[in-house]
């Protein structure tokens, strides 16, 4: 309770402060409490560090930045009320929300009040609704299949590729996107199949792949089935490479598939800690006893995006900021950000990884 009063007091002070010194109010919103609170905590730490760094260099357009924190607990209703509160506080930029289901309703409020926002939500619908104020600094769910499919078509040119899914919403969606991407590169998938997840016997599928001469399989689904298919392929004497989605990061895959797991490729969001240009910031976080994992670096990048866009536009007015963000290019800790007409960023949202001896790393091109 004491903390809440303190927080409210801080908010009040911040408001008074902003009125007195005309600081730029920027905000973050996300699940600061509830089951996803760890993500909210990462966002807060990243944003706080970024604002401290920007202010140390003299702020934006000669004025300091001040941070507002909104807690939506990943509840869409609470997200809308947070958005209204933030609008009343007259923020000039929002980084959030985190859950796609919160971002989508809240973005309508920000759009009406003309506040630009940068989000890490991955649902395609976030940027598919034609809102001009929203910019996404992370990958989209449907990019994953594109990245995986294009990689397969290029790296395994001339080899027969099968596309298989487990009939789940996630698996089928991913497999369809992979098939589309493979086709777009001029290769026709040799086989399109579905299996039932939760079964144990995939020897029928394996024999089918073997007799069709398939060496590479693009798979939409979970790691459990991949382990079984790999084992059964090995028993049948078929050397199979499997490309999967982000679910393949699970270490159970390695235990269950044994050494055959080295034949698994998968797509996953890039790790900003590996970005050489961000080494200084990574070190700074670690010195402050904060591991820059998950969303920490993305929150840092969102604040950099705002600062640079405002400097380029020489204004924090919505129309100027929006124009600068859409047209410009920004050096951030997650890479060089620029956006397309929908507001999706043009960075590679997903990287191709490969398992090797129980560890995974970027695949060598």
């Amino acid at each position, binding site marked *: 309770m004491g903390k809440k009063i303190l927080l409210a007091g801080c908010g009040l002070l911040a408001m008074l402060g902003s009125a007195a010194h005309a600081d730029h109010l920027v905000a973050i919103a996300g699940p600061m409490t509830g089951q996803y609170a760890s993500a909210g905590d990462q966002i807060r730490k990243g944003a706080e560090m970024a604002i401290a760094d920007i202010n140390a260099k003299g702020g934006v357009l000669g004025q300091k930045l001040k941070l507002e924190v909104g807690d939506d607990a990943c509840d869409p209703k609470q997200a809308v009320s947070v958005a209204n509160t933030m609008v009343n506080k007259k923020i000039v930029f929002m980084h959030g929300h985190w859950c796609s289901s919160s971002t989508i309703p809240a973005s309508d409020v920000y759009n009406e009040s003309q506040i630009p926002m940068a989000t890490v939500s991955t649902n395609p619908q976030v940027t598919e609704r034609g809102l001009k104020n929203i910019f996404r600094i992370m990958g989209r769910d449907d990019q994953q299949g594109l990245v995986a499919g294009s990689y397969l078509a290029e790296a395994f040119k001339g080899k027969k590729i099968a596309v298989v899914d487990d009939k789940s919403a996630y698996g089928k969606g991913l497999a369809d996107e992979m098939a589309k991407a493979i086709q777009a590169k001029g290769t026709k998938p040799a086989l399109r199949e579905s299996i*039932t997840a939760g079964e144990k016997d995939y020897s029928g599928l394996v024999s089918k792949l073997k007799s069709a001469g398939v060496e590479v399989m693009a798979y939409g689904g979970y790691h459990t089935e991949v382990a079984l298919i790999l084992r059964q392929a090995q028993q049948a004497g078929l050397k199979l490479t499997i490309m999967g989605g982000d679910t393949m990061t699970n270490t159970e895959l390695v235990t269950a598939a044994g050494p055959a797991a080295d034949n698994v490729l998968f797509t996953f969001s890039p790790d900003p800690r590996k970005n050489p240009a961000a080494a200084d910031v990574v070190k700074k976080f670690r010195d402050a006893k904060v591991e820059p994992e998950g969303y920490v670096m993305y929150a840092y990048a969102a604040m950099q995006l705002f600062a640079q866009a405002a400097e380029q536009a020489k204004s924090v007015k919505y129309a100027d900021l929006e124009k600068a963000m859409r047209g410009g290019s920004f050096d951030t800790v997650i890479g060089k950000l620029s956006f397309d007409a929908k507001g999706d960023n043009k960075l590679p949202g997903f990287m191709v990884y490969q398992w090797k001896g129980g560890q995974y790393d970027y695949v060598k091109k």
Partner: protein
Amino acid sequence: MALALQQLINGLTLGAVYGLIAIGYTMVYGIIGMINFAHGDIYMVSAFIAVTGFTLLAAFGVSSVPFALVVVLIVAVLFTSVYGWAVERLAYRPLRGSTRLAPLISAIGMSIFLQNMVQLTQGARVKPIPPMLTGGIDIYETAEFTVRIAYSQMLIVLVTVGLMIGFSWLITRTSFGRQQRACEQDRTMTALLGINVDRTISLTFMLGAALAAVAGVMVTVYYGVVDFYIGFVAGIKAFTAAVLGGVGSLPGAMLGGLIIGLIEAFWSSYLSAEYKDVATFSILILVLMFRPSGLLGRPEVEKV
């Protein structure tokens, strides 16, 4: 041609496993006229015992695969038989003589209980073991396809054939087998002749559980991954096998298992793997339409 041969091998392996589990269903139905829905979960428990056994043996540095296999098989059969006995004693015997529906509901409850027990004590995540029996023999080669029998497939088929021979001997030639068949025909009369009916029924449950235990160990070796939910799918398939072959008939259960294994294997390689289960159950419906008591089942005569 080569593909067909390969699928024949795969289908027979799968069918053998279904058959082993199906016998448990059919025996229990034969003797007390109820479907033991917890049977699939007994099989799941034995798979977990197998995973624990293999992991423990590996931790103690046992690297001989045949030795580990025999030890785990014996341990799994012993423990799982106790489970089979306990399930009958706790959930079915108190309900004997009540309505037909009561033990059925009790069986479903037992199934849920076993699933949740394993989920709570072992966790909901899959439990893998590292590959044990890898490799196989190439038996037929063409330019584009090599037919291969994996060692683990050979193991499953050989063990199943051995068990079937032993089991038929047990039922047709021993005094326990005679008692068991007598109970099947008329429990009251059997009791009047001085045979302990409760003991015979308990032994039947233990035998069914033991066969399921063998299937559980084999599947663990073959697929290498178990979770608390595997009993459901396997149980449904094996139950279907028992019904297809004629519930109550032991050779029928094995035959039903093999037929379902083969349908699944051939359907998934020549047609679409997606509609494999649709095909299996359509054939079940067709068979039941023309032979309501299954392929080898005797039509039930209501005694008045």
